[in-house]
């Protein structure tokens, strides 16, 4: 179709493949004098995991936050299911079926699992909170994810890093989002918990979600993702298909060593 499709073809993606769920292109964003993003691009299809990689400060988190509505981009297009959209706040993003798990999880430490699952979208009946329904649903979601939490009424501050991740993911899955943005989901986890997290992400892919995952760990990236988008100094330098590349090439693109 248009430039977005053309861009995907340049990436070597079959143009007859299904239309991406989400495309973000020419995204720029500055904080005062810091140009965090200048020409960022990323796209994801249903049932696909795209890794977003880049050095510290490359703009990965900023790009995620533009898509999640935490930041407003200065310029650029966001296309969701073929429609141009504007995302001004977290609720816009949520309404488009985009859900985000932040690097710092954005959980509420003093609140229990139920309150964390429902923060910002609490269930009500006749104007008052429907606490019973929320608790029942929370129990169901937790069971579905096969994570072992002590009780959904435990404050999150008493949970381990892996359990917190599970709560953050549960929040996202629960609301039926089709597009998931995960910022460094394994950064704070031990080896075993990391592997559980990766399996969880693969599960979500099987449920036909489109997933963009930021990671520093190339082993993790190569284990789960289909394509790898490399960001450098706020600019997307390219998108590689996992089968066509290896970690040395990715590292070269991340650092820009081939330019020297």
């Amino acid at each position, binding site marked *: 179709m248009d430039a977005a499709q053309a861009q995907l073809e340049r990436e070597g993606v079959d143009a007859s493949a299904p239309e991406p769920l989400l495309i973000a292109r020419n995204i720029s964003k500055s904080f005062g004098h810091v140009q965090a993003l200048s020409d960022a691009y990323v796209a994801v299809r249903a049932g696909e995991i795209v890794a977003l990689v880049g050095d510290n400060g490359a703009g990965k988190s900023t790009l995620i936050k533009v898509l*999640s509505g*935490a930041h407003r981009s200065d310029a650029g297009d966001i296309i969701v299911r073929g429609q141009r959209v504007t995302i001004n*706040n*977290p*609720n816009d993003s*949520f309404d488009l079926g985009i859900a*985000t798990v*932040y690097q*710092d*999880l*954005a*959980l*509420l*430490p*003093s*609140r229990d699992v139920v*309150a964390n699952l*429902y*923060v*910002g*979208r*609490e269930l*009500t009946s006749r*104007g*008052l*909170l429907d606490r019973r329904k929320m608790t029942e649903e929370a129990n169901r979601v937790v069971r579905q994810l096969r994570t072992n939490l002590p009780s959904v009424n435990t404050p999150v*501050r*008493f949970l381990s890093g892996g359990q917190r991740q599970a709560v953050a993911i549960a929040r996202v899955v629960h609301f039926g989002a089709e597009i998931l943005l995960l910022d460094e989901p394994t950064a704070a986890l031990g080896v075993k918990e990391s592997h559980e997290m990766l399996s969880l992400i693969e599960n979500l892919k099987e449920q036909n979600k489109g997933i963009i995952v930021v990671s520093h760990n190339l082993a993790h990236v190569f284990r789960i993702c289909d394509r790898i988008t490399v960001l450098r100094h706020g600019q997307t330098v390219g998108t590689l298909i996992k089968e066509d590349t290896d970690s040395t090439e990715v590292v070269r693109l991340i650092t820009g060593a081939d330019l020297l």
Partner: protein
Amino acid sequence: MAASADKVKDLDAAAADTRLRRLLMQREVQLLLVLVVFTLLVRAGGAKGFLGPTHFPIFLSQVAPDMLVVIPMAMLLIGGMFDLSVTGVANLSVVLIGWTFSRLLGTLDDTLLIILVVAIGLTAGLIVGAINGLAVTRLRMNPLMTTLATWWMAQGAATGVAGGESRHNFVGAFRDIARHQPLQGLGEAFPFLQEMRISTLPLPVFYALIVIFLGWLVLTRTRFGWHIFATGSDRQGAALNGVNVNRVTLIGFIATGMAAAMCGIVWASRLTSAPPNTLGGLELRVIAAAVIGGAALTGGEGSVLGAVLGLFFMHMIRSATIQLGLPVYWEFFVLGAVLFTAVAFDAWAKRRADTQ
């Protein structure tokens, strides 16, 4: 068979045990036990009528004006903010009422005039609350310094408007705001209410009950209440999840400001005079009460019941000091010691939770 039945019994016992332990871990339950023990000790110490049928209604009417403020203050604390300006706001509202009465007495219908002064008092609270809230959210000013500044401005304005006079020319019926006893009629019909002195409870006790009920309802049963907790627990995290944190904070400051003004109105009605130093120490009294009741200065934790019990405790210490005939100066020592203990206990509980 027998063995498995035993096992079930054991499990039941264990469940009951953890339930009891969890109950005892609740701040409200602990505080209630402390209050009961304190009451018994004071009675044993010689003040036999302490919180007895004669004292209790009087005690309630003494606590009531502070209660109006401690509830929204606790909610503000739970939302991660606090407000020092309440004493200044309450005194400003008192002085504005006295000033308005002195200007307009006789020119307006009495009822109309009363409605007018109440509206003026509440508006003062609304304005200062809105200034606090907007400064903290829009201008990102520090809440401590902002509300210290507005406290001084409100207090200064109160003193300035009063101009060294405390006015006493009030509409007679204005007294009813603090002194009317709505259950008096019921007391005639049901003698036990009279005996228990419940029929003598004045209106402010009922204002306090309404505020307590509303506070509890909002905090635990509405989305807005959960948004208050979310905002105080992690302001950024809450915002990322679509909670309008600035709205939570702004409404919190406005509610606290208006409650402080209402507290001033009650005092003006009770005293029917309007000196600019009618209230003193209100801010620290209610903040300390909320903290003793389990509200965290760092936000995200606390409850309405805890704040109620915390304020009861503060006032019980006051009453006990007087009834036991102790020098009043020691009251502050005891209040300080209680606050110290509560904060130390919180720190200890937090350390223990972190190492678990």
